[in-house]
């Protein structure tokens, strides 16, 4: 899991453990400090905003589609003019291209302007250029709105790509959040149990983790997903093909990493004085685990979660790309990319748009993750 977060791979001493020290003359609580540092990181804040926007888009997708006037994500229209006589799809309406081109041109112009020495004197110029281009784009969009029927074109059975990209956001975000949450619950629990109780329990759990980590992950996930995607699902129909299977599979291959990390943390934490103190006061095991150790795990857990969510978005997309993920006709960015592989040479739009959507989403999460890391561990500044 090397994605550039070395401090998480260190089993021993955790820097910056947020210890609720007694009698500390703290001007600000650690939480406030953390929030303050995070707020100062503008890129992270903007990314958080983008994520919020994505979540809203996903939730309100049907409404947006109705407002825009696009057909639903599964409405097939095999007649012309959306399809040619050979059944190949047609591209985005030309009018819809203008707003994007304008914004792109404005961004490039602004970037160019910001690098020139003249801009240093007139600091506002790049920002103004960008803002103006956005305004022009919005005006154009409003003017051309009624005729921009298929904003992103149609796919090979005539479905609107714009609608499917929006609905794909639902799938990606839902799967990523739920699967991550599930793997966290399982991983944290097992990691804590293994780290705290040690002995045979630890050995058993660690061996299982080692065994699972020896598998090539994508193959394991593919195998499970394919096997469970047939007919009535597996485990007696408990795991229905589609969303449920994908979530289960992603959670299944993910829990081992967080379990290992948590186990490492717990191993070192249980030797600390405050734990000894609690034990000597007669606290039960469960009390120690939940009241003393768990709060100190919150920081690495949160950081890990923000790193893992974008990985899981990509993972679900990869599974769908290989045909083992979300079942059609549900829209998923990965399966849209898979459809695009047969005709990307003439139909670039349903390769570009889902891919760009994936890129933006994952990038936003990665930036937020970076910002969180910096805010929690200011010494290991990565930005």
């Amino acid at each position, binding site marked *: 899991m*090397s*994605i*550039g977060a*070395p401090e998480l*791979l260190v089993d021993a001493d955790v820097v910056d453990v947020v210890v609720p020290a007694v009698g500390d003359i703290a001007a600000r609580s650690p939480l406030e400090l953390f929030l303050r540092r995070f707020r100062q990181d503008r890129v992270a804040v903007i990314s958080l905003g983008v994520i919020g926007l994505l979540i809203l888009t996903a939730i309100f997708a049907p409404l947006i589609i109705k407002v825009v006037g696009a057909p639903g994500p599964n409405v097939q229209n095999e007649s012309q003019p959306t399809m040619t006589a050979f059944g190949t799809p047609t591209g985005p309406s030309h009018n819809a291209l203008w707003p994007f081109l304008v914004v792109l041109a404005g961004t490039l112009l602004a970037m160019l302007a910001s690098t020139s020495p003249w801009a240093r004197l007139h600091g506002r110029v790049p920002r103004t250029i960008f803002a103006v281009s956005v305004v022009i784009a919005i005006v154009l969009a409003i003017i051309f709105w009624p005729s921009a029927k298929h904003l992103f074109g149609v796919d090979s059975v005539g479905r609107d790509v714009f609608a499917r990209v929006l609905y794909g956001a639902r799938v990606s975000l839902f799967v990523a959040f739920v699967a991550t949450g599930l793997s966290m619950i399982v991983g944290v629990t097992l990691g804590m149990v293994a780290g705290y109780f040690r002995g045979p329990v630890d050995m058993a759990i660690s061996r299982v983790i*080692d*065994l699972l*980590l*020896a*598998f*090539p*992950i*994508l*193959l*394991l996930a*593919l*195998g*499970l997903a*394919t*096997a*469970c995607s*047939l007919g009535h699902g*597996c485990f007696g129909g408990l795991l229905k093909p589609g969303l449920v299977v994908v979530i289960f599979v992603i959670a299944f291959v993910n829990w081992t990493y967080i379990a290992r990390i948590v186990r490492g943390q717990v191993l070192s934490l249980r030797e600390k004085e405050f734990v000894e103190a609690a034990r000597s006061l007669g606290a039960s095991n469960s009390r120690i685990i939940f009241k003393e150790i768990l709060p100190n795990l919150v920081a690495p857990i949160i950081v890990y979660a923000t790193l893992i969510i*974008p990985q899981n978005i*990509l993972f679900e*997309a*990869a599974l769908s*790309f*290989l*045909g083992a993920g979300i079942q059609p006709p549900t829209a998923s960015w*990965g399966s849209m*990319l898979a459809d*695009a*592989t047969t005709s*990307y*040479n003439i139909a*670039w739009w349903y*390769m*570009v748009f889902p*891919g760009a959507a*994936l*890129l933006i989403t*994952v*990038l936003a999460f*990665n*930036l937020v993750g*970076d910002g969180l890391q910096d805010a929690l561990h200011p*010494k*290991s*500044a*990565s*930005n």
Partner: protein
Amino acid sequence: MTTYIIRRLLWVIALLFGVSLVTFVIFYLLPSANPALLRAGHQPTAALIKAITHQLGLDKPWYVQYLDYMKALVLHFNFGYSYQYQTPVKTMIFSRLPATISLALGAAVIWLVSGIIVGTISAIRPRSRFDRSMMGAALVAISAPPYWLGLVSLFLFSTSVGRFPILPGAGSYVPLTQNPVHWFTGLIMPWLVLAASFAAIYARLLRGNLMEVMSEDYIRTARAKGVPERRVILRHGIRSAITPLVSAAGVDIGVLLGGVILVEQVFTIPGIGGLAYQSILNGDLPMIQGTVLLGAFFIVVMNLIVDIGYAFIDPRVRYS
């Protein structure tokens, strides 16, 4: 030291046994296709399928089948016979291995070199324009799905269907022994696509480590002693900062050698990844076993090498 190595080796063997058992159970209990039907091919009668099932030993209980398989594997190095390709599994795997190795190792060279260079420069000049743009590009490279990058680059640069045809595209892999020049040009695009996200990760990793190391006391001492800056960076800085990279590289290469499914799919490179993927789709159990075991083998062995390397460097590890 020797006891440590032996202990780890035994554990590797135990792990591989475990992997084979779990794979067998998974694909036996949750089969995606009836192997006898695969072998039987076209319009088979029920009687033919029954006869083939018996002939291939598929009607025996699963643990018997597993033992038969392990016996053949351990005693005769026989991986079984593929129902899908009508060829021994071993032959198929070894004929596909060179392609995956070419892809994985070539990409590894590219990402290590570029990652180290970019990471070093960024660490030396933190928050400069180079640093910021490079780290920004790195984040983008990490966030883009590799198969999408592959598709976009094919769409733009592939000689057969691209808009600006400059590089051979999908399906242009030739083995090294057949034509080294074509082998090289055919792999440039896949290498770059595969190396992109890894280079980004390693650049960030090195940057972070190097910046931490450069703020250590002994660096300050070296500078105070008058050591030239370049030597400080190369001799003292990178040396300490690079260890996590090497271990990460070992692990990553191990994973890639087991098959780079996504990139191989997009560029139709005849490697292990595509073989494993097709065999999973077709429920070809012996081939699935073979490819998963191979992948696990590489992962575990590379981990072992990395761990032994660490044990050399840090004696404390041996006693854990």
